[in-house]
């Protein structure tokens, strides 16, 4: 990531130029950095949001380490992220290849395939709550229509299927986004490369693995990073569809934080959970960035 062009000579120098960055810095400082900094304080307190916070040292963190639902939330978000890597990034890549054609109709198909992306997660989540409904949902209606009554499940009501159902909806919404990214990159691969491979007797599958995939490496790395950081931020879909249930089976860090903070009035504890989340996301991303840079270094 990041533009690699070297920086031209500055137009002007001097502290006064800070003024151009000042509005953005102030806004950013006020609503991003300041809350981050204050959470470092609140995380060490017992605080219900109304009375004065009371310093309790590491208690919140000890509690977080022993909170089974909190720990499971990280398991769930990991499963969710792995699922989205398959259903969003992987599926998106396949669809980019499939829909990569100049023929009439393909542009329209790409447009339709992408369209769920402009719906809000909330609308998507609510719509899918109906699609997945046990009694009258679309999926169970189809299954019953084929006489597969036993296959009809209360998808969002069972711990065993709820998380999978959410991953599916997430895939539905985001696959188009990754498809478009891959598609834009595919268009830049010279056709001659494929033609040469065809002359060498390579079929479409081999071409995919020997040409397409390596050529899309950089986009793939970016997409994976987006899916991972986006996955940790996941809240809307979970809130709209299950709000962590049934039996915390779809609890992810964001839903658990909001529950602790606002349902249970334990803002100190919830803030400690946010600090943990921030650290986890930063560490995972930085490790990932470092690793992917090393991949670059090995190749070139």
């Amino acid at each position: 990531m990041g533009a690699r062009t070297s920086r031209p000579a500055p137009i002007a120098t001097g502290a006064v130029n800070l003024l151009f960055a000042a509005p953005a810095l102030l806004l950013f400082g006020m609503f991003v950095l300041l809350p981050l900094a204050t959470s470092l304080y609140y995380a060490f307190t017992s605080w219900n949001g109304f009375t004065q916070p009371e310093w309790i040292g590491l208690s919140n963190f000890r509690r977080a380490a022993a909170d089974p639902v909190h720990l499971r939330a990280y398991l769930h978000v990991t499963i969710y992220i792995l699922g989205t890597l398959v259903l969003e990034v992987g599926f998106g890549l396949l669809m980019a290849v499939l829909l990569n054609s100049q023929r009439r109709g393909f542009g329209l198909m790409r447009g339709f395939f992408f369209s769920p992306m402009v719906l809000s997660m909330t609308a998507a989540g609510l719509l899918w709550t109906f699609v997945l409904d046990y009694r009258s949902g679309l999926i169970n209606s189809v299954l019953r229509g084929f006489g597969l009554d036993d296959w009809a499940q209360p998808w969002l009501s069972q711990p065993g299927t709820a998380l999978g159902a959410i991953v599916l909806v997430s895939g539905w919404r985001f696959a188009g986004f990754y498809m478009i990214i891959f598609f834009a990159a595919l268009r830049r691969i010279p056709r001659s490369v494929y033609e040469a491979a065809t002359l060498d007797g390579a079929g479409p599958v081999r071409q995919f693995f020997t040409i397409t995939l390596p050529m899309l490496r950089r986009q793939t790395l970016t997409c994976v990073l987006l899916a991972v950081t986006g996955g940790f931020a996941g809240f809307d879909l979970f809130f709209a569809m299950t709000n962590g249930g049934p039996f915390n089976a779809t609890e992810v860090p964001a839903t658990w934080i909001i529950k602790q903070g606002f349902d249970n009035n334990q803002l100190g504890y919830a803030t400690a959970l946010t600090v943990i989340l921030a650290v986890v996301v930063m560490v995972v991303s930085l490790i990932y960035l470092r690793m992917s840079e090393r991949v670059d270094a090995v190749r070139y």
Partner: protein
Amino acid sequence: MRLHMTTTSVLAVLATAGFATIAAAQTEVRFTHAMTGGSNRAALDEIIANFEAANPGITINQIVFDDDIYQDTGLITQLQSNEVPDIYFQWAGFPLSRDVEAGFAADISAEMGAGWSDRFIESAFTDGAGTTVNGAIHMVPLSLDVTNTIWYNVDIFEEYGLTPPETWEEFKAVITTLAENGETPIVTGNNEFWPLGNWASHIAARVVPADQFDAALRQEMTFAEAGFLRPLELLEELHEIGAFNRDMQGLGADPGMATFFQGAAVMHPIGSWLVGLAADLADDDFRYSQFDTPVIDPDAEAPQSVIGVTTGLVVHAQAPNREAAITFLDFLTTPESQVLWAEGGSLSPVEGVTDMAEMDPQMESMAEMLGNADAMVPPPDTTYPLAVAEAWYQAAAFVASGERSPEDALDWLDTTVAALN
């Protein structure tokens, strides 16, 4: 509509009393609650309209939330904001005492002392009713809710020749008949745990001695020691004969109730507020009735106990318009207003209203049930630390949905509660 009425009434006052100027500014009383619809809400709207007609200087601004959101984030974000509501809806008992402790709930003993409290039934203001905290009155009681009874679809019962069961065995026989005929015997929308949790507590209160029930929920004794295995086993019996809807843990409380009103399930254990919602959710020809949870153990301490709670309105301690808020609450609890309120489908805590009002027959039977009960058990989530109550509710849901055995659920419950300290 409301604006129109206010304007006309202002004009009327101007004309008759001959005021020179309109009262300086309208006082806006902010009132937040979770009555989104139904006949309760219609009654409330009517009372508010009457109030605004009688008090042209005051308007009531209702801030309404869906029930679940109200309890989750809706109320607490308001209580903590700079612009606090003057009046808010709350459950008596633990939620109220927590609000008092946090400094949200105003002490209204002084206002109540001046004859106002005499309007209410005798038991309205006690620590037991949960409307007072340390002897000070912090709530204007508005409804006595029976939080659990078993509603049933009369047509389907007749179709299979069933009658309301009186013993647990009869109850199971009814369920078995229904399940064998492909019906969903009991529907509960339990994604928030309290609908079934309330009923499970009712069942528990029938088989666990009162002091042990209390001790377990106060964390003075483990649930295992207190004898909570038995109620969990009873729930397991129900699960095993196919009593419950399969999607209970994904269904919200309201959709659960709607499933009952649509005839997609035969019985629905929930509180007295179902009556107030029937107007919105059920067809006019929908026939339903209720029976209390059948006697499980005739030799138990209180085999016919009823589970119920008082709900009411609280004045915020920082209410910007306290005086106007009190004026409104006073108006709301006059016998005249309460008759309207009771006819909307509530059990009024004001003396004599139940006799004066032309109440829904279902509410009459509910009032009768309260009269005949040998004990009144409060729902745990309004009486005991919320985290403990919710853990117990969740344990009940584990068993009823077949996720865990009673033993495992009990282990989980005691471990979870022990970790709370």
